[in-house]
């Protein structure tokens, strides 16, 4: 068991990247400013020059950089993904995070020396799938989907033969990552090939009867009374009519916070903890990374983990252990 869990933090913009490093990230993950990464939102991500600077900033401070190239190229359009893998290698990224089998195949054959992590978008949900990616593409690490109970995480980690990275904080949907196209069904853009779930260009807000309505592709996802905490306008957080009654059929608007079970994730043999939120600002990054840095340091040194106070920045203003909690499903 590793003494220090590796803290993997978001770098949505160059400033957020530096904020992550400064707040104590061991590793920062980020992406190029195009469809090759799953957080392709306006104003985010890195051009090649910014990426070179960011990698330099991290390496000078002894931290690692992972480049997420974790979307699925459309037929006949693999060029940008191949270019992204080539550039990640030449810019000196410590690893690439990949999901598509075609891209994995390309990276493994062209850049065997470049470390490959399996993205959560690949949806590897069992031992056999993890074996498949390890044997065929030489992955060194897999990001586990946000759908397992703690004991299931432990059982997988014990056998999986590559490093395990699990989510510790941030937003999460209930659908299996990489296997949900509700967003493109409703608005034409999806995480798979466009790198964006419910992108801003498809979202509108409208005041009606004193409530604020949130629409995705013109479809009403939710309506909030004044002061009622809101959630992302993603389909999996929609309030829908089921047999004539409104309900959160998929999931309540809430965010994941695994702070309270960090010792148990460590015991389970997890290598790295991931903080979600490349779409979020420096303020969020600084606060969350600092909190988890303090927790992991305490954990490594055998001190009690200081309490976290992150509920204010959590989706829907509500934290949850997500699928880690028994009975979630």
């Amino acid at each position, binding site marked *: 068991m590793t003494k220090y869990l590796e803290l993997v933090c978001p770098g949505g913009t160059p400033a957020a990247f530096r904020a992550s490093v400064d707040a104590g990230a061991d590793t920062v993950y980020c992406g190029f400013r195009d469809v090759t990464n799953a957080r392709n939102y306006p104003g985010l991500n890195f051009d090649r020059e910014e990426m070179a600077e960011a990698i330099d900033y991290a390496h000078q401070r002894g931290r690692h950089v992972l480049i997420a190239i974790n979307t*699925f*190229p*459309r*037929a*006949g359009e*693999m060029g940008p993904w191949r270019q992204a893998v080539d550039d990640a290698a030449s810019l000196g990224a410590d690893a690439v995070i990949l999901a*598509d*089998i*075609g*891209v994995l*195949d*390309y990276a493994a054959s062209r850049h065997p020396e470049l470390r490959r992590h399996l993205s959560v978008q*690949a*949806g590897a*949900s*069992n*031992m*056999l*799938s993890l074996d*498949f990616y390890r044997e065929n593409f030489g992955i060194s690490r897999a990001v586990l989907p946000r*759908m*397992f109970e703690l004991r299931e995480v432990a059982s997988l980690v014990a056998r999986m033969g590559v490093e395990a990275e699990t989510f510790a904080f941030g937003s999460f949907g*209930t*659908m*299996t990552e*990489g*296997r*949900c*196209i*509700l967003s*493109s*069904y*409703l*608005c*034409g853009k*999806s995480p*798979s*090939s466009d790198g964006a779930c419910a992108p801003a260009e498809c979202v509108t807000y409208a005041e009606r009867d004193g409530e604020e*309505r949130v629409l995705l*592709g013109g*479809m*009403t*996802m939710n*309506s909030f009374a004044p002061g009622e905490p809101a959630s992302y306008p993603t*389909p*999996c957080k*929609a309030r*829908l*009519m*089921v*047999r004539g009654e*409104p*309900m959160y*059929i*998929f*999931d309540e608007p809430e965010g994941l916070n695994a702070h309270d079970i960090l010792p148990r994730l460590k015991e389970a043999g997890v290598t790295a903890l991931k903080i979600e939120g490349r779409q979020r600002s420096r303020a969020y990054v600084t606060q969350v990374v600092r909190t988890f840095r303090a927790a992991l340091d305490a954990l490594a040194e055998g001190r009690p983990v200081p309490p976290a106070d992150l509920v204010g920045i959590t989706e829907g203003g509500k934290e949850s252990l997500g*699928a880690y909690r028994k*009975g*979630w*499903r």
Partner: protein
Amino acid sequence: MMPAGLTGSKRTGAGLTLGPLLFHWPVEKRRDFYARIADEAPVDCVHLGEVICSKRAPFFEREIPAIAERLKKAGKQVVLSTLALVTTEREIAEVRAACDAGYLVEVNDVSCLRVLGGRPHVVGPLMNVFNEGALSYMVRGGAVRVVPPPEVSAAGIATLARAAQGMDKGAMDQSVEIEAFAFGRQVLSIAMRCYHARSRGLTKDTCQFACEADPDGLPLATIADEPFGVVNGISVLSHGYVAAFAQMAPLAAAGVARFRLSPQDCDMVAVAKLARSVLDGAREPTSALAELRPLIGAVPVVDGYLRGVSGRETIPA
């Protein structure tokens, strides 16, 4: 593999596949359904096996050999579909058993590829084969037929079909076939949670087979009463049926070898006959669509993904 003896200018040599039943129908209803398919439906290939939920599988498992026999006698290829989401040891065991049952298997989760270890198989629409890179890898790994995911546009499917023709011969010493989804509700998401159970305040473990009450899915609407989709166990499916009659001839011309009809709670024999007649050039797509409408009641017909726009978009008038 192809239906023989087709001639005529508009005729295509493409085949029809009846995809796996995605809903939890009572055993009686399933038995009758497949008997009628065997006797009357002009499809070349029929998928059996449970895709959505391992808890449902035992209800129909022991019926499969007899039904498969009857389908084969009727000249149809039988493919055994496997689970879309594999997480437990029991589910892994089920996938292993399916791979050793003597049928051609449809892969719907990566784990199944690992079990097959290069044996010939079909790659289903729940696998993410979006591009020629992934397709080529699948072919080298034994795929004989690949169904692109629902999100891929007609242009994308055509690109894959053209790429497939240039690839090395696969495990069955023939070029990999591309099969396009042509009728029924599209699977939009897969999850660990069962939403049918959740809709009744239950969990997946205590579900009481809530999904059996909805043989065509549980409709979801937005709070502004716009149709959203339907819940089917752990999956969410499109609110409308795809009916790709208009895209069949051009896709077949691009090299698409088969078209998939996904079982819905309507007269699937009639649907198959309509699709066959379009492939044979005996019916115009527009008239086939007009004849389809009374067969499917109030369900709208969508084709947005094929046109490269939002999947929920209905066929323009």
